[in-house]
């Protein structure tokens, strides 16, 4: 009878991956977990507080408001950016010099650092020196993003649409280019209308890139920090204070590391949950039957 030889060398082969994941995800995350269940004054003075911080965070009405604001914000920009991105992609030329030119033009906003985007819009939106602000006021509207919450929202949303619609557009553009010509030919022979071509050929073939695009846009917008921070600083009042900014205020402004850690974990779980629900729903919708 042959006995199986135990060979533990295989573990060494897994080690590098384990180490990388440990350093990149597990260890930082565990630090946060560590803070979220203890009250730490200095490295030698610490008290275990259990779920205390989590309770506090869950009951904090400021965070509730920020969370609601965050959801409305992410939802709004998805509603605008996805259809707009598809439209831009459909209108982009497919051949020749025009195609390269369009690609470069569309990609430009993506190349600008986030804090610069905030600065650009901060100036662009000012009524005294900014084109956009001056234009709005020229129309007779009393536009002022630093005193009117609606105007602040409008500007933050507009900034995000300007900055990130190109991402959706580029993803869709590549998706559209991947559709074989023969599909369009078949559609012509079937006498399909332009809408039918979009609905039954282009949209289904774009589904996969759109899922990726929407996930990326959801995660990024849900974590947005830099641009609104530079543009409005979360104001006026707290009308454009999103979750990240609340977190930073708590952790760095007030140095409440315990609640901030608990908050981080909840924040992380919300993103994970929403992405998971979104992804599984879409994937199930695509399945046969």
């Amino acid at each position, binding site marked *: 009878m042959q006995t199986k030889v135990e060979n533990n060398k295989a573990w060494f082969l897994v080690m590098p991956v384990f180490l990388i994941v440990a350093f990149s995800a597990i260890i930082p995350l565990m630090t946060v977990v560590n803070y979220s269940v203890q009250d730490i004054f200095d490295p030698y003075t610490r008290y275990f507080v259990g779920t205390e911080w989590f309770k506090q965070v869950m009951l904090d009405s400021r965070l509730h408001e920020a969370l609601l604001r965050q959801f409305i914000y992410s939802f709004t920009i998805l509603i605008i950016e996805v259809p707009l991105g598809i439209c831009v992609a459909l209108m982009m030329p497919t051949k020749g010099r025009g195609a390269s030119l369009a690609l470069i033009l569309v990609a430009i906003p993506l190349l600008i650092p986030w804090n610069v985007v905030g600065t650009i819009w901060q100036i662009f939106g000012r009524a005294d020196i900014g084109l956009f602000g001056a234009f709005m006021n020229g129309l007779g509207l009393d536009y002022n993003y630093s005193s009117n919450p609606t105007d602040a929202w409008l500007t933050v949303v507009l900034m995000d649409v300007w900055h990130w619609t190109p991402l959706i557009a580029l993803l869709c553009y590549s998706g559209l280019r991947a559709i074989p010509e023969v599909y369009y*030919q*078949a559609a*012509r*022979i*079937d006498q399909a209308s332009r809408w039918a071509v979009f609905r*039954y050929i282009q949209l289904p073939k774009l589904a996969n890139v759109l899922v990726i695009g929407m996930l990326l846009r959801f995660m990024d917008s849900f974590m947005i920090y830099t641009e609104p921070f530079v543009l409005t600083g979360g104001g006026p009042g707290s009308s454009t204070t999103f979750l990240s900014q609340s977190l930073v205020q708590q952790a760095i402004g007030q140095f409440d590391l315990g609640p901030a850690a608990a908050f981080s974990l909840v924040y992380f779980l919300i993103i994970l949950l929403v992405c998971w629900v979104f992804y599984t729903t879409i994937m199930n919708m695509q399945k046969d039957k």
Partner: protein
Amino acid sequence: MASITLNALAHTYTENPTKPEDYAIREMTHVWEQGGAFALLGPSGCGKSTLLNIISGLLKPSNGEVLFDGKRVNELKPEERNIAQVFQFPVVYDTMTVFDNLAFPLRNIGVPEYKVKSKVYEVAEILELSEQLKRKAKGLSADQKQKVSMGRGLVRDDVSAILFDEPLTVIDPQLKWKLRRKLKQIHEQFNITMVYVTHDQLEASTFADKIAVMYNGQIVQFGTPRELFENPAHTFVGYFIGSPGMNFFEAELKSQGEKEALMFGDHEISVSDSMLARLKNMGANKVTLGIRPEFVHVWDGKNDDAFPVDVDYVEDLGTYKILSFLFHGKVMKARLSEDQKVPSGQIYVSFPEQWTKVYVDEYLVDLTAHSSEDDMNKETDHAN
């Protein structure tokens, strides 16, 4: 349903064509009669698909016209030509059910839903897709998908013609013949003009009544499978049709005293006197002779009328054997029947006069040209 006429048609992809090689389709005039099943056969890159796309209107020809039932359709878009086309790779609308896929062309032209329903059920029945009607098209196998794309062509009543662009390329071999038979059946049932593009001679000859062989952007012969086999009009047809293709060798017309003779080295190849007279008339000194391996006569013993040749090797293909031999330094092939003894060393072969074809500048010198054309006309009269 319509007859399709190509009138002085030519197409080029280059902007300023100067020489014949610049043309993907060289000027041709050709008629596909109403209700026929035709194949367009040729090697990759000979212009078959280009020609098909010109007929369906996906491509605009650079010169000449396309006529459906005598009416010029050059200016009509594919959607206005009422043509169905099945592509090499099956095109289905993934997110729709099979039913919706088949209904799609009808709904696009605003056919009332009750008619759509009956028509789709009818076509699904013919294509054996009834069971799959409620399924999403995405999950179908390749052959079912291809049937769906065919079905989209069949649901419309008034379709002028169905064009097939190598539709069986992605289908498993055992399903190929089944689908091909289905096509044939559909053709008999609907009496629609069908043009079937392929590079497979077997596919072409099992599907079509008449095959157009295309080579370098030209239709070099249009005839029944039998005509293509027995009387190739162009050396390419001889080479491309048949397995293995025709044997070709160069011969020279020489005068021997009073008489003319076709000489291959020291050997005189026998052809009819009228052929010799014709060649002399044409002033052709060098000709290409072609004979099919099936018609090369291999003698069992020594024969004074036959040429002595050396056996190179014999390939056993199961039901028959292919003999390769060296005739005056030229490798040629002959097909041996099952019961024929396998020769070796020096053997004797002869080329029956009837099956020795003479080509000048790649084209057949056909002494019976007129009578065979009459035959063709008779055939088409019959078909109509």
